[in-house]
Protein backbone atom coordinates (compact mmCIF):
# COMPACT_ATOMS: atom_id res chain seq x y z
CA UNK A 1 0.00 0.00 0.00
CA UNK A 2 1.65 3.18 -1.19
CA UNK A 3 2.28 6.37 0.65
CA UNK A 4 0.93 9.30 -1.35
CA UNK A 5 3.21 12.34 -1.18
CA UNK A 6 2.46 15.74 -2.69
CA UNK A 7 5.32 18.05 -3.62
CA UNK A 8 3.89 21.54 -3.38
CA UNK A 9 4.89 25.17 -2.74
CA UNK A 10 2.39 27.87 -3.64
CA UNK A 11 5.07 29.98 -5.31
CA UNK A 12 6.18 28.96 -8.77
CA UNK A 13 9.65 28.01 -9.88
CA UNK A 14 11.01 27.03 -6.47
CA UNK A 15 11.97 23.46 -7.43
CA UNK A 16 8.88 21.23 -7.15
CA UNK A 17 9.36 19.39 -10.42
CA UNK A 18 13.10 19.00 -9.86
CA UNK A 19 12.42 17.68 -6.35
CA UNK A 20 9.66 15.30 -7.48
CA UNK A 21 12.01 13.79 -10.06
CA UNK A 22 15.01 13.62 -7.74
CA UNK A 23 13.18 12.27 -4.68
CA UNK A 24 11.24 9.84 -6.86
CA UNK A 25 14.41 8.60 -8.51
CA UNK A 26 16.27 8.40 -5.18
CA UNK A 27 13.49 6.24 -3.68
CA UNK A 28 13.42 4.05 -6.79
CA UNK A 29 17.22 3.74 -6.72
CA UNK A 30 16.77 2.45 -3.15
CA UNK A 31 14.53 -0.29 -4.54
CA UNK A 32 11.12 1.23 -3.86
CA UNK A 33 8.45 1.06 -6.49
CA UNK A 34 7.65 4.67 -7.30
CA UNK A 35 5.10 6.45 -9.48
CA UNK A 36 5.52 10.18 -10.08
CA UNK A 37 2.46 12.06 -11.37
CA UNK A 38 2.55 15.40 -13.15
CA UNK A 39 -0.47 17.47 -12.08
CA UNK A 40 0.57 20.55 -14.04
CA UNK A 41 -2.09 20.27 -16.75
CA UNK A 42 -1.19 22.32 -19.80
CA UNK A 43 2.34 23.01 -18.59
CA UNK A 44 3.79 19.57 -18.14
CA UNK A 45 7.52 19.40 -17.50
CA UNK A 46 8.16 16.35 -15.37
CA UNK A 47 8.45 14.29 -18.60
CA UNK A 48 11.21 16.61 -19.79
CA UNK A 49 13.14 16.55 -16.51
CA UNK A 50 12.95 12.75 -16.53
CA UNK A 51 13.91 12.49 -20.20
CA UNK A 52 10.66 10.76 -21.18
CA UNK A 53 9.20 13.53 -23.35
CA UNK A 54 9.49 11.54 -26.56
CA UNK A 55 7.69 8.54 -25.12
CA UNK A 56 4.43 10.05 -23.90
CA UNK A 57 1.42 8.30 -25.40
CA UNK A 58 -1.30 8.70 -22.79
CA UNK A 59 -1.68 11.09 -19.89
CA UNK A 60 -3.41 11.46 -16.54
CA UNK A 61 -6.60 12.86 -18.06
CA UNK A 62 -6.77 9.99 -20.58
CA UNK A 63 -6.72 7.60 -17.63
CA UNK A 64 -9.34 9.47 -15.59
CA UNK A 65 -11.61 9.49 -18.66
CA UNK A 66 -11.15 5.80 -19.39
CA UNK A 67 -9.43 6.35 -22.76
CA UNK A 68 -6.42 4.46 -21.44
CA UNK A 69 -5.75 2.04 -18.63
CA UNK A 70 -3.34 3.13 -15.96
CA UNK A 71 -0.93 0.37 -17.00
CA UNK A 72 -0.90 1.74 -20.54
CA UNK A 73 -0.23 5.31 -19.51
CA UNK A 74 2.58 4.70 -17.02
CA UNK A 75 5.99 5.20 -18.61
CA UNK A 76 8.74 3.09 -17.13
CA UNK A 77 12.07 4.84 -16.68
CA UNK A 78 14.80 3.44 -18.91
CA UNK A 79 17.47 3.64 -16.20
CA UNK A 80 15.67 2.62 -13.00
CA UNK A 81 13.05 0.02 -13.66
CA UNK A 82 11.04 0.69 -10.49
CA UNK A 83 10.39 4.32 -11.46
CA UNK A 84 7.25 5.19 -13.44
CA UNK A 85 5.87 8.46 -14.77
CA UNK A 86 2.24 9.40 -15.29
CA UNK A 87 2.44 12.53 -17.48
CA UNK A 88 0.13 15.53 -17.40
CA UNK A 89 -1.98 16.38 -20.39
CA UNK A 90 -0.46 19.10 -22.51
CA UNK A 91 -3.45 19.82 -24.68
CA UNK A 92 -6.54 19.37 -22.57
CA UNK A 93 -8.43 21.88 -20.56
CA UNK A 94 -7.58 22.01 -16.86
CA UNK A 95 -11.21 21.39 -15.94
CA UNK A 96 -11.03 17.98 -17.58
CA UNK A 97 -9.34 16.79 -14.42
CA UNK A 98 -12.01 15.85 -11.89
CA UNK A 99 -11.69 14.98 -8.24
CA UNK A 100 -13.41 11.66 -8.79
CA UNK A 101 -11.07 10.81 -11.66
CA UNK A 102 -8.02 11.62 -9.59
CA UNK A 103 -9.40 9.63 -6.66
CA UNK A 104 -9.70 6.52 -8.83
CA UNK A 105 -6.21 6.85 -10.29
CA UNK A 106 -4.63 7.38 -6.87
CA UNK A 107 -6.55 4.44 -5.40
CA UNK A 108 -5.27 2.17 -8.16
CA UNK A 109 -1.70 3.43 -7.80
CA UNK A 110 -1.84 2.86 -4.04
CA UNK A 111 -2.31 -0.85 -4.65
CA UNK A 112 0.67 -1.19 -6.95
CA UNK A 113 3.38 1.13 -5.65
CA UNK A 114 5.35 1.96 -2.51
CA UNK A 115 5.35 5.69 -3.21
CA UNK A 116 3.09 7.87 -5.30
CA UNK A 117 4.57 11.35 -5.66
CA UNK A 118 2.38 14.13 -6.98
CA UNK A 119 4.09 17.12 -8.61
CA UNK A 120 1.78 20.06 -7.91
CA UNK A 121 1.32 23.04 -10.19
CA UNK A 122 2.19 26.43 -8.69
CA UNK A 123 -0.55 28.48 -7.10
CA UNK A 124 -3.24 27.70 -4.57
CA UNK A 125 -6.10 27.10 -6.99
CA UNK A 126 -7.92 24.00 -8.11
CA UNK A 127 -4.93 22.29 -9.73
CA UNK A 128 -2.79 22.61 -6.62
CA UNK A 129 -5.70 21.51 -4.44
CA UNK A 130 -6.33 18.42 -6.57
CA UNK A 131 -2.66 17.47 -6.39
CA UNK A 132 -2.74 17.55 -2.57
CA UNK A 133 -6.26 16.21 -2.12
CA UNK A 134 -5.38 12.55 -1.43
CA UNK A 135 -1.93 13.02 0.08
CA UNK A 136 -0.74 11.28 3.22
CA UNK A 137 2.40 13.39 3.33
CA UNK A 138 3.44 16.73 1.91
CA UNK A 139 6.84 18.01 0.91
CA UNK A 140 6.61 21.78 0.95
CA UNK A 141 9.33 23.16 -1.27
CA UNK A 142 10.59 26.60 -0.36
CA UNK A 143 13.55 28.81 -1.11
CA UNK A 144 15.09 30.77 1.79
CA UNK A 145 13.43 33.96 0.65
CA UNK A 146 10.44 35.92 1.94
CA UNK A 147 7.78 35.46 -0.73
CA UNK A 148 8.44 31.76 -1.07
CA UNK A 149 8.11 31.25 2.70
CA UNK A 150 4.93 33.28 2.80
CA UNK A 151 3.39 31.13 0.05
CA UNK A 152 4.53 27.98 1.83
CA UNK A 153 2.56 29.15 4.84
CA UNK A 154 -0.59 29.49 2.75
CA UNK A 155 -0.07 26.02 1.34
CA UNK A 156 0.27 24.64 4.86
CA UNK A 157 -3.10 26.22 5.60
CA UNK A 158 -4.64 24.40 2.64
CA UNK A 159 -3.00 21.11 3.60
CA UNK A 160 -4.62 21.47 7.01
CA UNK A 161 -8.08 22.24 5.65
CA UNK A 162 -8.65 21.07 2.08
CA UNK A 163 -7.15 17.59 2.00
CA UNK A 164 -9.19 14.46 2.48
CA UNK A 165 -7.15 13.65 5.57
CA UNK A 166 -7.87 17.07 7.09
CA UNK A 167 -11.59 16.67 6.41
CA UNK A 168 -11.55 13.31 8.15
CA UNK A 169 -9.93 14.87 11.19
CA UNK A 170 -6.59 13.25 10.47
CA UNK A 171 -3.61 15.24 9.35
CA UNK A 172 -1.17 15.25 6.48
CA UNK A 173 2.45 14.77 7.57
CA UNK A 174 4.21 17.90 6.45
CA UNK A 175 7.89 18.50 5.77
CA UNK A 176 9.83 21.49 4.54
CA UNK A 177 12.36 20.99 1.77
CA UNK A 178 14.57 24.04 1.38
CA UNK A 179 15.95 24.18 -2.14
CA UNK A 180 18.42 26.39 -4.01
CA UNK A 181 20.25 27.07 -0.77
CA UNK A 182 23.23 29.25 -1.55
CA UNK A 183 25.88 28.82 1.15
CA UNK A 184 27.86 31.89 0.07
CA UNK A 185 24.83 34.15 0.31
CA UNK A 186 23.84 32.57 3.60
CA UNK A 187 27.32 33.32 4.96
CA UNK A 188 26.90 36.95 3.96
CA UNK A 189 23.57 37.06 5.75
CA UNK A 190 21.62 37.68 2.57
CA UNK A 191 19.20 34.81 2.88
CA UNK A 192 16.77 33.73 5.53
CA UNK A 193 18.48 31.11 7.66
CA UNK A 194 17.15 27.58 7.85
CA UNK A 195 16.23 28.22 11.49
CA UNK A 196 14.24 31.30 10.47
CA UNK A 197 12.33 29.29 7.88
CA UNK A 198 11.54 26.43 10.25
CA UNK A 199 10.62 28.82 13.06
CA UNK A 200 8.22 30.75 10.88
CA UNK A 201 6.58 27.68 9.38
CA UNK A 202 6.90 25.48 12.49
CA UNK A 203 7.17 22.40 10.33
CA UNK A 204 9.99 19.82 10.41
CA UNK A 205 12.78 19.85 7.86
CA UNK A 206 13.17 17.11 5.26
CA UNK A 207 16.36 18.43 3.74
CA UNK A 208 18.39 21.33 2.43
CA UNK A 209 19.21 21.16 -1.26
CA UNK A 210 22.09 23.43 -2.25
CA UNK A 211 22.02 25.59 -5.35
CA UNK A 212 23.93 23.52 -7.86
CA UNK A 213 24.88 23.61 -11.49
CA UNK A 214 24.58 19.85 -11.49
CA UNK A 215 20.81 20.23 -11.22
CA UNK A 216 20.77 22.32 -14.38
CA UNK A 217 23.08 19.95 -16.26
CA UNK A 218 20.84 17.07 -15.26
CA UNK A 219 17.70 18.81 -16.51
CA UNK A 220 19.51 19.55 -19.74
CA UNK A 221 20.10 15.89 -20.42
CA UNK A 222 16.78 14.72 -19.00
CA UNK A 223 17.98 12.77 -16.01
CA UNK A 224 17.37 13.45 -12.30
CA UNK A 225 20.54 14.64 -10.56
CA UNK A 226 20.53 11.54 -8.33
CA UNK A 227 21.02 9.42 -11.44
CA UNK A 228 23.07 11.75 -13.57
CA UNK A 229 25.54 12.97 -10.95
CA UNK A 230 25.00 10.85 -7.84
CA UNK A 231 28.00 12.39 -6.04
CA UNK A 232 26.88 15.96 -6.58
CA UNK A 233 26.03 17.83 -3.35
CA UNK A 234 22.41 18.36 -4.44
CA UNK A 235 22.10 14.68 -5.33
CA UNK A 236 23.45 13.63 -1.94
CA UNK A 237 21.02 16.01 -0.23
CA UNK A 238 18.16 14.44 -2.21
CA UNK A 239 19.31 10.91 -1.28
CA UNK A 240 19.31 11.90 2.39
CA UNK A 241 15.91 13.59 2.12
CA UNK A 242 14.55 10.40 0.53
CA UNK A 243 15.87 8.36 3.46
CA UNK A 244 14.22 10.74 5.92
CA UNK A 245 10.97 10.42 4.00
CA UNK A 246 11.22 6.68 4.64
CA UNK A 247 11.48 7.39 8.35
CA UNK A 248 15.22 7.02 8.73
CA UNK A 249 16.99 9.32 11.15
CA UNK A 250 19.69 10.98 9.07
CA UNK A 251 21.66 13.84 10.66
CA UNK A 252 21.22 17.16 8.89
CA UNK A 253 24.29 19.05 7.77
CA UNK A 254 24.15 22.56 6.46
CA UNK A 255 25.76 22.89 3.03
CA UNK A 256 28.83 25.08 3.60
CA UNK A 257 30.50 27.47 1.27
CA UNK A 258 33.70 26.13 -0.23
CA UNK A 259 35.77 29.05 -1.28
CA UNK A 260 39.30 27.72 -1.05
CA UNK A 261 41.41 27.27 -4.13
CA UNK A 262 41.67 23.58 -3.44
CA UNK A 263 37.92 23.26 -3.33
CA UNK A 264 37.45 25.28 -6.43
CA UNK A 265 39.88 23.08 -8.30
CA UNK A 266 39.09 19.69 -6.89
CA UNK A 267 35.97 20.02 -4.82
CA UNK A 268 33.54 20.21 -7.69
CA UNK A 269 33.41 16.52 -8.21
CA UNK A 270 32.07 16.19 -4.70
CA UNK A 271 30.28 19.52 -4.57
Amino acid at each position, binding site marked *: MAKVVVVTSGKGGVGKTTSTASLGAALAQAGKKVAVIDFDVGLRNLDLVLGAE*RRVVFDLINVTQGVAKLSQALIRDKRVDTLFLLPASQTRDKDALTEEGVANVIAELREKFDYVICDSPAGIERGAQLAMRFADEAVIVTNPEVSSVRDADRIIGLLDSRTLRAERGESVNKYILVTRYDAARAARGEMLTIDDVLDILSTPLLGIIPESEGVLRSSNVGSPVTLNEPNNAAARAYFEAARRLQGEDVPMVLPVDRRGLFDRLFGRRAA
Partner: protein
Amino acid sequence: MSLFDMFKRRGSAPVARDRLQLLLAYERNNRNQPDLVAMLREEIMAVITRHVQVDQDDVRVTMDRGATMSTLEIDIHIPNAAAAAH
Protein backbone atom coordinates in the same frame (compact mmCIF):
# COMPACT_ATOMS: atom_id res chain seq x y z
CA MET B 1 38.16 16.53 -12.72
CA SER B 2 39.16 14.70 -15.87
CA LEU B 3 39.29 16.26 -19.29
CA PHE B 4 36.37 14.09 -20.23
CA ASP B 5 34.28 15.52 -17.39
CA MET B 6 35.03 19.03 -18.62
CA PHE B 7 33.80 18.18 -22.06
CA LYS B 8 30.81 16.43 -20.65
CA ARG B 9 29.94 19.57 -18.67
CA ARG B 10 30.15 21.73 -21.77
CA GLY B 11 28.07 19.11 -23.49
CA SER B 12 24.84 19.42 -21.53
CA ALA B 13 23.50 22.62 -23.12
CA PRO B 14 23.63 21.32 -26.71
CA VAL B 15 21.84 18.20 -25.56
CA ALA B 16 19.16 20.40 -24.02
CA ARG B 17 18.86 22.38 -27.24
CA ASP B 18 18.45 19.25 -29.37
CA ARG B 19 15.86 17.76 -27.05
CA LEU B 20 13.88 20.99 -27.01
CA GLN B 21 13.99 21.49 -30.76
CA LEU B 22 12.65 18.01 -31.29
CA LEU B 23 9.91 18.37 -28.72
CA LEU B 24 8.81 21.84 -29.75
CA ALA B 25 8.72 20.98 -33.44
CA TYR B 26 6.31 18.22 -32.56
CA GLU B 27 4.23 20.28 -30.14
CA ARG B 28 3.90 23.24 -32.51
CA ASN B 29 2.72 20.94 -35.24
CA ASN B 30 0.13 19.40 -33.04
CA ARG B 31 -1.13 22.47 -31.28
CA ASN B 32 -4.16 23.07 -33.48
CA GLN B 33 -4.77 19.70 -34.95
CA PRO B 34 -5.57 16.24 -33.67
CA ASP B 35 -2.62 14.30 -32.39
CA LEU B 36 -1.38 12.00 -35.17
CA VAL B 37 -0.33 9.30 -32.76
CA ALA B 38 -3.68 9.34 -31.00
CA MET B 39 -5.47 9.17 -34.35
CA LEU B 40 -3.39 6.26 -35.62
CA ARG B 41 -3.82 4.46 -32.35
CA GLU B 42 -7.60 4.85 -32.38
CA GLU B 43 -8.01 3.84 -36.00
CA ILE B 44 -5.73 0.84 -35.69
CA MET B 45 -7.58 -0.23 -32.58
CA ALA B 46 -10.93 0.20 -34.32
CA VAL B 47 -9.84 -2.06 -37.18
CA ILE B 48 -8.60 -4.71 -34.82
CA THR B 49 -11.64 -4.73 -32.58
CA ARG B 50 -13.79 -5.16 -35.67
CA HIS B 51 -12.19 -8.56 -36.09
CA VAL B 52 -11.23 -9.76 -32.66
CA GLN B 53 -12.26 -9.11 -29.12
CA VAL B 54 -9.28 -7.67 -27.29
CA ASP B 55 -9.21 -6.42 -23.79
CA GLN B 56 -7.68 -2.99 -23.23
CA ASP B 57 -5.28 -4.70 -20.86
CA ASP B 58 -3.84 -6.74 -23.72
CA VAL B 59 -2.75 -3.70 -25.65
CA ARG B 60 0.56 -1.94 -25.09
CA VAL B 61 1.29 1.23 -27.00
CA THR B 62 4.78 2.62 -26.94
CA MET B 63 6.28 5.45 -28.83
CA ASP B 64 9.65 7.00 -29.44
CA ARG B 65 9.67 10.27 -31.30
CA GLY B 66 12.85 10.96 -33.21
CA ALA B 67 14.06 13.89 -35.31
CA THR B 68 13.54 12.29 -38.69
CA MET B 69 11.51 9.25 -37.71
CA SER B 70 9.26 8.13 -34.90
CA THR B 71 8.24 4.67 -33.92
CA LEU B 72 4.78 3.76 -32.76
CA GLU B 73 4.58 0.24 -31.42
CA ILE B 74 1.23 -1.34 -30.78
CA ASP B 75 1.58 -4.66 -29.11
CA ILE B 76 -1.65 -6.63 -28.98
CA HIS B 77 -2.11 -9.99 -27.34
CA ILE B 78 -4.83 -11.75 -29.28
CA PRO B 79 -6.30 -14.76 -27.52
CA ASN B 80 -5.95 -17.93 -29.63
CA ALA B 81 -9.61 -18.86 -29.38
CA ALA B 82 -10.66 -15.52 -30.80
CA ALA B 83 -8.10 -15.71 -33.57
CA ALA B 84 -9.21 -19.23 -34.46
CA ALA B 85 -12.84 -18.14 -34.78
CA HIS B 86 -11.97 -16.10 -37.86
